[in-house]
């Protein structure tokens, strides 16, 4: 259970991701869209943090900043104490749209990240890719083309692709939006298992409050225009959690109330 990396970081300083006073405004022609305004948050090493908030409140933007695909106007984002200056293989992103490569088949997509990982021979890459395809239940589609998959299957391939290179940090943007309830619950289990076994740090964006409570150690509530972190909920329910449990439903209810309150009253502190 205890991996060397976890042991190396002392209990006093286990911050994996630090977002400090970050603001980001998009300028398009005459319009200016303040996507994030003075957002600060930290994510501990091995922590599972969920972001919830209405559409357009800057959740994807925040993930892109952590991923190093965009840069803040002010403030800074750091991972392991290092300022983020670009994408890195330690932070894998699962985009809101599956973003699979149509010129590669299913296993080819999962192999993409593995091919860029040094010290892996072809057999090891294949084995890893097949392992993750099995995990998301798509081993029989390994040779299918991307356009032959349903939306939910594409998301599962994207999950396998993000997990395969075994990154320390996973940034997931509404990854299970297009899935049916059964597959979704199965993947919650798999994701939690992988997170615990491999001690990953996960930032998970969702519109589904129940999903957030089921998965997260903490749930951060965002409000829009401009995007800000409004409230933080620590979820101490024992794992594995039952999506339909009474405690979970109660916590989800509280958070939903808070979301509604912030929407109705955007400027209250």
């Amino acid at each position: 259970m205890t991996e060397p990396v976890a042991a190396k970081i002392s209990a006093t300083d286990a911050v994996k991701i630090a977002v400090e006073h970050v603001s980001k405004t998009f300028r398009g022609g005459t319009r200016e869209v303040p996507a994030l305004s003075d957002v600060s948050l930290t994510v501990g090493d091995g922590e599972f943090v969920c972001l919830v908030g209405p559409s357009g409140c800057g959740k994807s933007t925040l993930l892109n900043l952590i991923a190093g695909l965009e840069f803040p106007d002010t403030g800074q984002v750091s991972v392991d104490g290092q300022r983020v200056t670009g994408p890195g293989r330690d932070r894998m992103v699962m985009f809101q749209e599956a973003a699979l490569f149509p010129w590669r088949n299913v296993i080819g997509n999962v192999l993409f990240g593995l091919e860029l990982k040094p010290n892996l021979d072809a057999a090891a890459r294949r084995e890893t890719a097949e392992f993750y395809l099995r995990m998301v239940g798509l081993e029989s589609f390994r040779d299918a083309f991307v356009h032959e998959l349903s939306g939910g299957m594409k998301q599962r391939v994207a999950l396998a692709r993000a997990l395969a290179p075994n990154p320390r940090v996973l940034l997931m943007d509404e990854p299970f939006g297009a899935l049916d309830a059964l597959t979704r619950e199965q993947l919650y289990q798999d994701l939690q298992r992988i997170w615990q076994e491999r001690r990953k740090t996960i930032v998970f964006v969702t519109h589904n409050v129940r999903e957030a409570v089921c998965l997260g150690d903490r749930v951060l509530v965002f409000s829009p225009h401009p995007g800000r972190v409004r409230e933080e909920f620590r979820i101490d329910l024992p794992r594995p959690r039952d999506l339909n449990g009474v405690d979970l439903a109660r916590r989800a209810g509280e958070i939903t109330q808070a979301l509604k309150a912030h929407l109705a009253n955007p400027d209250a502190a």
Partner: protein
Amino acid sequence: MKRPLIAAVFFAGLLAAWHLLAASGRWSPVLLPAPLDVASYLVRAAADGSLAAAALVTGRRLAVGYLLGIGLGLPLGCLTSRFRSCSDTLGVVALGLQTLPSVCWVPLALLWFGQTEGAMLFVVVMGTSWSIQIATDDGLRSIPPIYQRAARTMGSRGLHTVLHVLVPASLPVVLSGMKQGWAFAWRSLMAAEIFVTILSGSGLGHLLHYGRELLAMDQVLGVMFVIVVVGLAADKIVFSPAERWVRRRWGTDA
């Protein structure tokens, strides 16, 4: 089952109508030769090797010209899609020249290169490269940015991104540009061969031209037929399979 039958009936009817019109004697055989005359020309020309020799000359010019056109058009397209300064300058030039029918290059080519192979190639390259440049430019610009972003998060950079993301992502559009470029190259070369008389080998266009000068209408129609067949063959043998493959893989349209 039914489709070949319909096609067979259609073409048989066409030939019969042509034959009857020619046999009616209303037009002189110089203007309207019978289908059998054309067929016998084709058989003769095939037997004495003149058709094959001309096709070979034309094919060589086409291959060289087309490859040169690609060699010019592809890099130019990469430049214009990548750099604003190139698209504002070279891009505009290409767009303008692309609208110019390739025959219009013939007078210039004759003045610059005289009656040489160079003149032929010049016309073909000018007819081809601009459309390939424009297709390459379009293809690269139409790549959804998410592909590059996803690749970068997985550690892809520089040449790896070019080879494993940009090239395959733009392939469907670039391929259709190559096909269009081929069509332009073929048309340009025929224009050049008809208008540029040279000693370094007679191509299909020259046979057509001589046919007219000799009032040998069977030769004119026969060579036209061969030109059509070559065009169709290139499409069916090279481009259609490539396009089918891309469609199957990428799932684009259809």
